[in-house]
C-alpha cells in the first residue's frame, strides 16, 4: 500500500508546499464549504473592500452542496462538485491565505499559477462517492449565507476525510500526467 499522509487544519504554507501530486491524504479538523453562489458573494465583498464573514488564512474550502440530512444523520450525501466553475473567484481567495481546495475536475492555468505563487494545493475527492465521503463528516454548522440552502457556507468538522493531491504547489498535475501512462495509440 502507498503511504497516506494525515493533515490537520489549519495548515501553514510550508506544510502545503511539502505535499506532492499523487499523495493520498486524510484530512481532519475544520473545513469550509463553498460553491458558485457563495464564492460570488465572497469575492464581491473583497472587491468592495469589506471584511469577509470567514477567515480563510490556512484553511481549505470543499466544493460541495450536500443533500439534506436524514433523521439521525449529521449530513446527507456530500461528494465534491466540479471545480472549474469556481475558477473566476479562486485566485482572489488564494491571495487571502486559502491553502487548499477540495473538488473534482480540472482547474484553469490562472488558478494553478495563483496556487504556485501563494502556496496552495488542490485535492481531488471521488465524484459520486457522496454517501461514502459523508461518513468522515462528524459535525456540520452553517456559517453564513443560509439563504443559499445547500450552497450556504458550512463549516464541517471532518475526521480522516479521504482525498488525493491532484495539483501540488509546484503545479504538478495528475490529470495531465496519469492519463498519459494509460493512453493507447
Amino acid at each position, binding site marked *: 500500500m502507498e503511504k497516506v499522509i494525515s493533515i490537520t487544519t489549519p495548515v501553514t504554507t510550508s506544510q502545503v508546499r511539502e505535499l506532492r501530486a499523487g499523495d493520498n491524504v486524510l484530512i481532519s479538523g475544520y473545513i469550509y464549504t463553498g460553491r458558485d453562489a457563495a464564492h460570488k458573494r465572497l469575492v464581491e465583498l473583497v472587491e468592495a473592500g469589506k471584511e469577509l464573514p470567514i477567515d480563510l488564512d490556512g484553511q481549505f474550502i470543499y466544493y460541495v452542496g450536500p443533500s439534506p440530512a436524514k433523521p439521525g444523520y449529521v449530513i*446527507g450525501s456530500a461528494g465534491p462538485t466540479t471545480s472549474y466553475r469556481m475558477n473566476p473567484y479562486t485566485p482572489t481567495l488564494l491571495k487571502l491565505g486559502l491553502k487548499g481546495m477540495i473538488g473534482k475536475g480540472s482547474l484553469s492555468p490562472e488558478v494553478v499559477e495563483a496556487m504556485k505563487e501563494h502556496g496552495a494545493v488542490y485535492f481531488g475527492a471521488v465524484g459520486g462517492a457522496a454517501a461514502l465521503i459523508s461518513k468522515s463528516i462528524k459535525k456540520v454548522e452553517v456559517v453564513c449565507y443560509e439563504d443559499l440552502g445547500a450552497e450556504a457556507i458550512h463549516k464541517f468538522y471532518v475526521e480522516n476525510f*479521504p482525498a488525493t493531491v491532484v495539483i501540488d504547489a509546484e503545479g504538478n498535475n*495528475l490529470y495531465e500526467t*496519469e*492519463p498519459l*501512462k*494509460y493512453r493507447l495509440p
Partner: protein
Amino acid sequence: MRKIKAEVIKDKVRDLFLQASSFIGDDLYNKLKERYEAEESPVGKSVLRQIIENNDIAAREQLAICQDTGMAVLFIELGQEVMIVDGDLNEAINQGVREAYVGGYLRKSIVDDPIFERKNTQDNTPAVTYIDIVPGDQVKITVTAKGFGSENMSRIKMLRPADGVAGVRDFVIQTAVEAGPNPCPPIIVGVGVGGTMEKAAMLSKKALLRRVGEHNANPNYAKLEAEILDEINKSGIGPAGLGGRTTALAVNIEYFPTHIAGLPVAVNICCHASRHAEIII
C-alpha cells in the same frame, strides 16, 4: 378507455425518483464490478472500489448515491386509450417530484429564472417531461435524476452530410475526451443522431436510459457504439480522471430520420451514477 387517477401517477413518479436516487441499477453495478476486476491502474482500481462501496452504502442506508440528486427528467409513453382522471397530469408529475425531493431528503437544485434571479424553487420542480402518445391502454414512465456535473459536459453539433460516419465518431470521442475528469468518469455516453436539433438532443438523453450492455438493434449502429467506446477508453483518462483503462462504461446511440441537408449529432454525458428507473402502469 382505461381510467387512471392522477394521484396514481403522482405516487409512481415519487417512488421512481426515490428508488433511482439510492439504488443503482444491477446492469451498472455489475459493469462497475467487471471493470474493477479488469482495471490495470492501481489508482483507477481504488476509485472504482470507492464507487462500488458508495453504491452499497447508499442502497443499504437508503442515502442519495450522489449529493447532486439532479434535475428530474421524465419520458412518458401514454397509451391513447388511457384517460387521466381526477387531476392534471403535469401537476401530478411535479407533485410526485416534490414529494420525492422534499420527503426523501434529496437536494433541491432547481433555480427558477436561469439568468437573472436564479432563485431556488425549493422543491426541485419543475420536471422536464417528454410525453409520447402510443397505442394501447398502458402508461410507461421512465425517470432519470440527471446530475449537472456531467450534463455541463454535453454538446450538440450540426454536421454536414459529407462528414459522415467519421464526423459523428470523431465528434463523440472529442466530446468525451475533452470532458476529461469533470463529468465523474467512468461515464455513460448518450448519442442522438438525426432528426432536428432538439430531436437529436432529446434522443441523446433517451440513449442514456438504455441498460448498460445492450446495443442498438441496427448492427451498423451497434458496431459504431463499440468502436467509439473502445476509442474513448484508449484515452487513458480513467476513473475520476486519475488514469486507467476505464473512462466510459457504455456508448449508446439512438437515431431518427433526418433532412437531406443535415446530420445533427448530440452527445449527452452521464456520470457513473446514472440514476434511472421505470414502471409500466
